[in-house]
């Protein structure tokens, strides 16, 4: 028998420390594969066969074109805990965790996998080190726990019941105002409209200025490197402006009787009333993005998925009782936040790989939601899927989405009201997507409701 050379083990690689890769801006230029073009088709063909070690999936290109799927299928099959060193001078290198079970293991081990803003936070790219915004999602216990509890009551069961009538009335208003027989942008007219009104209510923010909340949400998650987005300093300035406006509200409310809006709740709770300004800003960003981007993109995604799956749309028309399970399936299928990131604070083992203290670990929720080891026929959109609630879009463990029940309620009411009014919402063009490895969203979705 011919002897086989033993493959040399690749060098052990880990996230570069801040000493090895000091924060700099602008970031060093991004390396991209040399391809004839960067269309969805070309990128998907490339990702089918490219060496896994050659791909930097944090590149917004793959997300704007929605072409990342073959890469994650291959990761799940071939390298479920995989270190990405390409472009490490930009992001320091990170572990991609792509299977359901491994993601669950990370998400439920907050003792080892930290969310701390000062270690970089909860997104693949670190927070600007000259602009750290502590927020409870980017904290570890015990501070995380007390701050989360300060806002939890607004989205708890009894309070949600009190919102239901308001959400339904508004949804009816927005839907009744839509044009018939003409093309319009569902994102702007419905998804943003409904979520911004809800957010304004949660903050007791003036409804006439609700689009400011949408704007700040978009700015806080926007990538300063993408042309057309605010640059780094400009982005920071916009967020400081947001802080300024909210500080006025805070000052009014801290001296009044406690009320049930988020600003009053933060101003009066002992766990949050003495927050430094950057922490107040961080928590605002968290609550605005959490209440906005995610629900907005699931509202848009639902319309798109039903158009791509006409047999499911037909099932829904025939049985409106499927709305509940469909809402969960939409949230799974959309996975509005593609990932959450942690930082290992001690050496550990994950999926047979040695994760070193200081390593970045990225949990790809959209990949876990397509893992056939955990979910039957995961690439299919099935509105009456058994156990549709078992998806990972809300995350698991102590950082699990606090507003998940509100999101589900908004989507449920929306679809109940849509079904009462419209037999069909036709998507007339492929959506324009957000270029981000974090927010899986739609910039626009052009639709027509038949006259």
């Amino acid at each position, binding site marked *: 028998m011919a002897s086989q050379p033993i493959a040399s083990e690749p060098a052990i690689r880990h996230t570069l420390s801040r000493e090895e890769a000091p924060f700099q801006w602008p970031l060093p230029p991004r390396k991209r594969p040399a391809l004839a073009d960067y269309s969805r088709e070309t990128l998907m063909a490339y990702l089918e066969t490219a060496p896994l070690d050659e791909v930097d999936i944090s590149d917004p290109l793959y997300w704007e074109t929605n072409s990342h799927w073959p890469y994650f299928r291959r990761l799940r099959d071939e390298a479920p805990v995989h270190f990405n060193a390409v472009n490490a001078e930009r992001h320091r290198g990170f572990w991609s965790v792509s299977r359901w079970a491994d993601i669950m293991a990370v998400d439920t081990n907050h003792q080892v996998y930290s969310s701390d803003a000062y270690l970089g936070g909860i997104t693949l790219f670190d927070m600007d080190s000259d602009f750290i915004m502590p927020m409870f999602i980017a904290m570890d216990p015990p501070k995380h726990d007390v701050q989360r*509890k300060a806002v939890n009551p607004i989205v708890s*069961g009894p309070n*949600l019941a009190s919102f239901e009538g308001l959400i339904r009335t508004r949804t009816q208003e927005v839907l009744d105002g839509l044009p018939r027989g003409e093309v319009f942008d569902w994102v702007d007219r419905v998804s943003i409209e409904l979520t911004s009104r809800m957010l304004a209510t949660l903050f007791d923010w003036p409804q006439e200025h609700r689009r400011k909340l949408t704007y700040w949400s978009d700015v806080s998650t926007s990538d300063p490197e993408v042309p057309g987005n605010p640059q780094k300093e400009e982005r920071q300035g916009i967020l400081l402006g947001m802080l300024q406006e909210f500080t006025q509200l805070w000052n009014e409310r801290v001296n009044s009787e406690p009320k049930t809006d988020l600003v009053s709740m933060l101003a009066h709770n002992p766990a949050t009333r003495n927050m430094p300004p950057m922490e107040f800003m961080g928590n605002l960003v968290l609550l605005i993005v959490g209440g906005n981007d995610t629900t907005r993109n699931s509202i848009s995604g639902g319309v798109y998925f039903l158009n791509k799956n006409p047999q499911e749309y037909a099932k829904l028309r025939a049985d409106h009782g499927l709305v509940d399970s469909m809402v969960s399936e939409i949230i799974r299928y959309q996975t509005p936040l593609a990932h959450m990131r942690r930082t290992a604070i001690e050496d550990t083992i994950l999926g047979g790989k040695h994760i070193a203290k200081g390593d970045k670990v990225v949990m790809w929720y959209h990949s876990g939601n397509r893992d056939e080891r955990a979910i039957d026929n995961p690439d299919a959109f099935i509105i009456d899927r058994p156990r549709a609630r078992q998806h990972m879009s809300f995350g698991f463990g102590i950082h699990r989405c606090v507003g998940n029940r509100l999101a589900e309620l908004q989507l449920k009411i929306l679809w109940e009201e849509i079904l009462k009014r419209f037999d069909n919402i036709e998507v007339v063009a492929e959506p324009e997507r957000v270029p981000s490895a974090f927010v899986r969203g739609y910039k626009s979705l052009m639709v027509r409701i038949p006259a």
Partner: protein
Amino acid sequence: MARITYIEHNGAEHVVEVPTGVSLMEGALQNGIPGIDGDCGGNAACATCHVYVEGDWLARTGERSENESAMLDLADGLEDNSRLACQISASPELDGLVLRMPASQH
């Protein structure tokens, strides 16, 4: 096998038999009992199978793990007899166990 009584927040009672080794969250899902969601599939990672263990049964259901405690601590309506049903396995010793549900799962 254990006969388990699940009592919804509105008082509706469901008495079912749960096979030994199956979690009481699974027992509820498999019998279509409303009020228990089990979103994380039984990993003590979501707190949507929060239940109150009635009377003297609590000690017999064992101790909360660290993660179970952490999730319950963030849930609505935490009481001394709160448990996550996914962390309790049916066994003959639990025959007759009574669980009540909170107003909502969050």
